[in-house]
Each structure stands twice: as C-alpha cells, then as structure tokens.
C-alpha cells in the first residue's frame, strides 16, 4: 500500500465558536452536507478505499445517524475517538494512532473544501522522494458581509511567510508573523544553496500533508511536538538545511527499524538506490554551483501552490458563509431535495438549495440561500443571502437577510433580521423589528 489517509476531525472550531458551541465543526452543514463529507469525498474520488478518521465521540455519534455519511461515503472509515478536552494537537493525534500506520500518510483536515487534483501533491512526494509535500492556495477575498459584525472589522491576521525556490515547488522557508520578533531572518546556508527565493504571503494553507512514515516514528519519539502545522512543518522545513549530523536522524531511524523488522517496506534501501541512479543520471534540480542534485540533502519538503480553483478552509464565519455559497455549485448539488415539500407559489432563486423534508409554504421568496433539512418556512417569508440550518422554524411574515440561523432555532412571526447570527435553539420573539447585525448566541 502506498498511502494511508488520515482525516483530522476532532478540531473545535475555535474561530467560530458561535456556530460550533453546539454542533461540532466537523458536522456543520455546508450546502446541506456535513463539513467532513467534503474531504472524504475528495479522498474517495481520488481512489482511496480506507480512511482513518480521528474524531470525538460526539462526532462519531452524529456521523452514524447522518444519512449523507451513511449513503454517500463508500470508503471504509476507521474511526478513532479521542478526548474532547482540546489539549490534543494534530501531531499528538498522529502519535496516538502510530500503531495503525504502516506506510506513508496523507493527513487531511475536516474543514477543507477543494477540488484540487491530488496527484499534483502526491507526485511531488513520490518523484522527489520527499519527506513532506503539502498543498497551499492563493487566498480568496471574502466578499460577503459577515453577520454579527458591525462594519468591516479588520482582524489583525497573523501573516504566514512562505519561501519557495525558483521552480515554485521546493519549500525553503516557513514562518508565521507571530514567531518573528524583529524581522524575517534567513540563514546564509539557505541563501547559498538557493540564491533566488520567492517569499509569498497571502497563501492559504490547506492543511493537506503527505508525510513519510519515518516522520510519524520520529513524532513518537519527540513528544514535544503537538501540532502539525504549527510545529512539525516549520521544524521539517528548517531541518532541510541543518548540518548533516542532525538531519539523517529521521532517515536512519526508519532504516534501522526496517532492517529489524525486515518488512520489505518501500523506504528501506530506496534512498540508497535512488542516490545510486541519481549519480548516473544527468539531472540536477539546480544549477550554478558545484553540488549534486538536491545539494546532497536527504530531507526535502515540497509544496504545490494552487493558482486557480476553489480551496477553502472553513475555520471562520466568513469562510463558512463563502463555502456555503460556493460548495454546492462545485459538486452540482440538486437545488431542491426530492423529499422537500414546496408549494407552487414559492419563488425560489436558482442559487438556493433546499434540504430534505422541508416544508416551504406559499408566497415565500428564497434567494441565494441554503435551507437545511427538516426546516419549516411559513407563508410570506422572505429569505435572502442566508444560511438556515436544520430543524429551523420560520413563522409567517419574517424577513431574513444575510443571516445565519443555526439549528433548531425558531424565528417568531414577523421578525425582521438583517445580518444576524442566531444561535442554536434560540427563539426570536415575534414582531421583532430591525434586528441588525446582531448576534444571539
């Protein structure tokens, strides 16, 4: 087997607590499908047959009852539950499942919605015998107004600095603004080996990583690393250029282990054969200096940067709204679920998506919105640019614009909501006028 897929679905959604305090992030509905359906669908389309899902017990319960997950996902899901206390980082989770991992792994986060051709990332991993291959994308501007936020709040986003070489594939430098105190400092050894480096900001990390098995074994020994993105990736990127005394540690561990086990794993001896053939090959990845291909380094990190095509990480409210707008179009979702009951005098725009078992009454107008399963919409309701989750009841005469209404909420008769965020199970009193940019948790 070449690659094992691992889906990290235990994240808490710390940047959108309003949505996630009741529903775990992995099961938030996006386009009437749970959020984790999207990465699972990506893996399934690529040809994976088994996925190890790391998640919490709550999500596992919800997964087993959700019809979309049961019917659409044909892969075998090996669910591993971990504690919900949130102390476990992604790297800790990998350490937890170390026994299950037999080959190189592909780690995906549950909040990734994309249609990237995965072979671009995996080809870099295979062809260059890389230790790490990851996916990044040019960030898209979010154009929708975010409910619950008065005016455009400029969050002091911590920028990520990503340095790539001239070909745009080799990852040379990665740091977050938060870690840089005075300025960006680059080691001389890197500049000597790669005199032309492109430093990019404004890239979205898709949290999709191909890692060698040796890295997982290395994690098992180094218990101080707890997050893949925050600690492991910068560590590996730095280690590419460190002195050789430390560098082959990861490789040697792997080769020793494999010699003991005599597994016949693909890594054993491959690096030595590769160097034997590369010695005779007339190829070099750089030119201008006297060193051999890859500068003789054994640890290599690669990145594939997507120029076009959707790639969203649903970890903020703005991203969630954007995803709801665009994800159904990506997957050619049927606008109206067959089991929804919609009366004839309802005006439905073509951009709207109605979930299963909804009941939409007369004289309603639904434009550019997503309505979840089992929602009841009574007469004379106007819904525009909104996201309405499952089990919501909207009484007559309501006017909802640009809002997000979480599950099981009840909007009283005649309420007027503009850019509001209604939390789970809330009730808006009838005749509530002119709610504007409000935020009811």
């Amino acid at each position, binding site marked *: *087997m*070449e*690659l*094992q*897929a691992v889906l990290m679905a235990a994240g808490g959604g710390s940047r959108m607590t309003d949505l996630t305090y009741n529903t775990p992030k992995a099961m938030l509905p996006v386009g009437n499908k749970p959020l984790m359906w999207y990465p699972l669908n990506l893996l399934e389309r*690529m*040809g*994976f*047959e088994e996925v190890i899902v790391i998640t919490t017990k709550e999500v596992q319960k919800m997964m087993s009852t959700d019809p979309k997950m049961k019917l659409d996902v044909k892969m075998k899901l090996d669910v591993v539950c971990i504690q919900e206390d949130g102390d476990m980082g992604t790297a800790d989770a990998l350490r937890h499942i170390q026994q299950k991992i037999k080959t190189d792994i*592909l780690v995906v986060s549950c909040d990734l919605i994309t249609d990237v*051709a*995965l*072979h671009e990332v*995996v*080809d870099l991993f*295979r*062809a*260059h*015998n890389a230790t790490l291959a990851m996916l990044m994308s040019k960030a898209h501007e979010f154009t929708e107004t975010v409910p619950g936020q008065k005016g455009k709040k400029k969050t002091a986003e911590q920028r990520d600095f990503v340095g790539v070489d001239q070909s745009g594939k080799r990852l040379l430098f990665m740091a977050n603004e938060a870690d840089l105190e005075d300025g960006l400092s680059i080691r001389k050894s890197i500049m000597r080996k790669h005199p032309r480096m492109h430093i990019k900001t404004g890239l979205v990390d898709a949290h999709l990583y191909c890692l060698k098995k040796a890295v997982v074994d290395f994690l098992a020994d180094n218990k101080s690393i707890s997050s893949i993105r925050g600690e492991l990736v910068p560590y590996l990127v730095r280690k590419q250029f460190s002195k050789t005394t430390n560098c082959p540690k990861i490789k040697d561990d792997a080769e020793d282990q494999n010699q003991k086990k005599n597994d*016949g794993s*693909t890594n054993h*001896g*491959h690096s030595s*054969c*590769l160097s*034997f*053939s*590369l*010695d*005779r*090959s*007339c*190829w*070099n990845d750089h*030119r201008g200096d*006297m060193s051999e291909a890859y500068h003789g380094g054994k640890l290599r990190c690669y990145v594939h940067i997507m120029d076009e095509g959707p790639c969203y990480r649903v970890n903020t409210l703005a991203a969630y709204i954007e995803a709801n707008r665009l994800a159904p179009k990506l997957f050619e979702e049927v606008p109206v679920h067959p089991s929804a009951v919609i009366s004839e005098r309802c005006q439905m725009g073509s951009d709207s998506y109605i979930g299963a078992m909804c009941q939409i009454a007369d004289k309603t107008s639904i434009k550019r919105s997503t309505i979840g399963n089992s929602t009841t919409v009574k007469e004379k309701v106007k819904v525009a640019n909104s996201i309405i989750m499952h089990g919501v009841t909207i009484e007559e005469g309501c006017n909802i614009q640009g809002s997000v209404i979480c599950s099981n909420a009840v909007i009283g008769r005649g309420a007027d909501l503009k850019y509001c965020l209604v939390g789970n199970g809330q009730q808006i009193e009838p005749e509530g006028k002119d709610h504007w940019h409000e935020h009811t948790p």
Partner: protein
Amino acid sequence: MADAGEPEGPERKDDIVKAKQEGKELTKEEKQRLRKEKKQQKKSKEKKDDKPSRDSEKEKKPASAASPAPQTPTQPPAQKAPSAAPAPVPVPASETPSAADKPAKSKAELKAERRARQEAERASKGKKGDVGPQAAPGKPKAPPSELQPVVKRLPEHVQVDNPEVLKKLAKKLERQQTPEYNAATKIPLRSDYGYKVSLFSHLHQYSRKAPLTQQLGIPSTVIHPAIVRLGLQYSQGIVAGSNARSVALLHAFKQVIRDYTTPPNEELSRDLVNRLKPYISFLNQCRPLSASMGNAIKYIKKEISNIPSQCKEEEAKRKLLNCIDCYINEKIVLAAKAIAKYSIEKISDGDVILVYGCSSLVNHILCEAFEKNRKFRVIVVDSRPRLEGREALRRLVQKGINCTYVLISAVSYILPEVSKVFLGAHALLANGYVMSRVGTSQIALVAKAFNVPVLVCCETYKFCERVQTDSFVSNELDDPDDLIVTRTGTTQLEHWQEVPSLGLLNLVYDVTPPDFVDLVITDLGMIPCTSVPVVLRVKNVDQ
C-alpha cells in the same frame, strides 16, 4: 514428373532451403527460376489441375499465415511456400480460359469454400497472424502477388498514426491488469499531445504536464508504488541517461520482487512474469523503454522463468534478488571499470578530448584517467533543449579537470584543437550504427571531416538486435514545450499551437553510421563498429 528442368530441381531446392535458413528472402533470380519451373510443371499436367491447384492454394494460405511469424516456420511448409507462391500466378491464368467449362465453375465454388475454411482456420490459429495483414497497409508496398513469402512485422511503437494499432494497444492495456483487480482498474492510455511533425507522426509525443498518474488512483494499488515512482521519475526527467534508467529499473524490480507473494495455485515462475507485464507497459507509457532496459527486462524474465517449480518462495526471491545484483555489478559497474582501463590506454598526456552531452560512462572514464595522473583537458559540447553538458561540466570541474564549454554550433570552430572525441552511446545496433543523443552524428561527421578519431564507449548490455540506418524510423519525441524559452521577459513560442503551419520537434536520439566511428570500447575489449553482430552472436551462444 519427368521435366527438363527437373534434375536441377533438388539442387535448387537445397539452395532455396539454405537461403531460407539464412535470410528468409529469396533473391530475384531464384524466384524467377522457381516460377519457370513451376510453370513447366503446371503446363505438363494441365488436365489434372484440380487437385494440385487446390493443394497449392492450401499451401499458399498457411504460407502467408506462417510468413508473418518468421520465428516459427517449419521446414516443409517453408519449402513448399516458394513452390506454392508462384503457383497462383499460373493457376488463375490457366483457369480463366476454362472459366466457361463446367469443371471451372465447380472449381471456383470449391475454391471459395476452401478459402472460407482457411480464413476460419487462420483466425483461430493465433494472434501472430493479426499483425501481418495490419502491418501490410502500413508498409509502402503491399505485396499484391504474394511473391514475397515474408512480410516483415512493424513494431507497434512506430505505428502511432495507425488507429487500428492504437485500438489494439488500448485493448492490450485493458487485458493486462492484474487478475485480482476488477476491470475498472486498468492501466490508463496516455494520450498524445500537440501537433506532430508529419515525418514523425508515427511516434508518440507526450506532454510532461500531463503525467500518467493523473488517470491512476492515488494510493496506487494496480501498480506497485515503486514502479509508479519510477515512472514519474522517468517522465519528469529526474532519472535520465541509459545507465541510470536501467539501474533504477532493476532496483524497482527488486522492490517488486521483495513485496511479491505467490497467490495460491500459481507458480512463481509464471505468475511473476505476468505480474511484471503491466508494470512494463506502464513504464513504457511514461517514457519509451531504452534498449538497455529492454535487455535488462529480457534477462530478468529469463531468470524468473528458469526458477524450478519446487523452489520455495523465499529461496526463489533470494535467488532473483541475487541475480539482479549480479547483473548490475557485472554489466554496469565492472563493465565501467573495464572500459575505463581500456580507455586510459588511449588517453595520452597533452590530449584535448571532446565530449558531448552527459554520458555517465564517459564522465567515469575521464575521472579515472585524471586520477591516474594523465594530463589532458576536456571540451564539453552541449545542445538545447536538454543542456545536459552543464551537468557533465559540473562533474568534471568538481574533480579538477580543465574544461571548456561550447554549444554544438561551435563544434567546427573548436575541432582544430581537439585530438580525440569520446562519445557515449544509448545503444549499438546490429548493423554497427550507434544510437545516441541527438547531435552525436553531427559531432562524428565533423570530427571525421577534421580527421579526428572518434571513440565510442559502450557496455555490451546495450547492444541491441535492431537494425536501423536512419533516425526517422524509430526515435523518441520529447515534450515540444521544452523548446519554448523565455528570454528577457518575452516568450516567443508560447502560442505555437495556434499557428497552424508551425510544428515543434524535439528529437531525443539519432544514429551515427559506422564509417564515422573509429573504435568502440566495450568491456570485451576494443572492437570496430562492424563487429557488433559478432558480439551479439557470441552473447546469444553463451546464454
């Protein structure tokens, strides 16, 4: 059958038999002689035309079916073939006058019946006959009179413009999936890219941006991951060069053998060979196989088939891995040492040596010679688009050798300084031609004009039974987009596909005639170019 020409018949038959054994094609005189003989025979027994003509028809059919399979003619049908082949010519001639007769009508009917029966037999006989009639339209002269009993079969990789052959290839890839996987997972067919120059439209042209892995599932289960990795490295050019590719191939096969388990009720010797077939097709699609790789694969398949059936799996695997290691050691590593030893005798102090491109063997020789304290300097000639000479330059300069670097357009200017030319080879063909990187024949030609000795260094495992006299018939077309270059911000050829009369050609190999090559240095010694068939014959006898 007392005939005037009869007594000479048996002698001529012997000649013909000898000719058949040697060349499988009769000379014109012999054919004419046979024709005359048969005409006389037929005229003498005109009345009894029925049986002999039908017999000759029957023989004609198996003859044309046997001829596309030149490897397996049995002597009697082959002998009858020349005698039967001229027969149809006089037979229709003799039959047409008697067409009005009653026996002629029944003759025609019977003939039609027999023909139908022969067609059915031939169809069931085998697939070898398939290529024969299909290759015929591809050949410039379809033999209408079927006087040539031998129809040469064109290899499939030079028939890319024939849609039937492409269909056959697609079907072959479908059939080749490993049996335990369902029909949905099969080896994909890589499609050609861009406009092909008409002279080379019979070859494949792939784009590097459309790798074969696009159509494969990600955790590749159909093809072993080591082979997928190897295919990617081939198509992206990370592993390039005849020796490097063969070594990488053998290492990947070692990995495959290590991970292989014999399924129940199967024998390792047969199942493993079948397992390797789809891998080889996959690699062929990533990048056409080189002659050295072909020889290595033949060797491995022979070794696998020779494993005795009572051998246990572990032992068999160990033996195979050992064989592969031996092969690499003998044919590549030790051969390089031997060639270096011979070559160093030819390098004297004060020499100016010209090399072309990056040949791992030539680089090795030069480094060894430098270590043995020979005083020489090197001129590295390079050519676009690969610019491999830069890598050769790097390796030589790293050792400390004095080097000059020029592009191939400057070869005639720099040759007056040169005392020897050392060239590497991709393969040595059976008629003494040297197949090497495109540009090599130019260098050899110019060197010949300046009377500079040209020495080709080549290991014996690259000797190939193919015969080629030009670079058109069989070559490799690389990605045409490699020719596009951006200088000072402008890319001239960026939209070359939109210009209807423009085609980009990126050839990889060319053949150098043996007249331009003075010496071939192999691990068996220093031989002239024309002795390659001798070496091949000796090798075959050994094996």
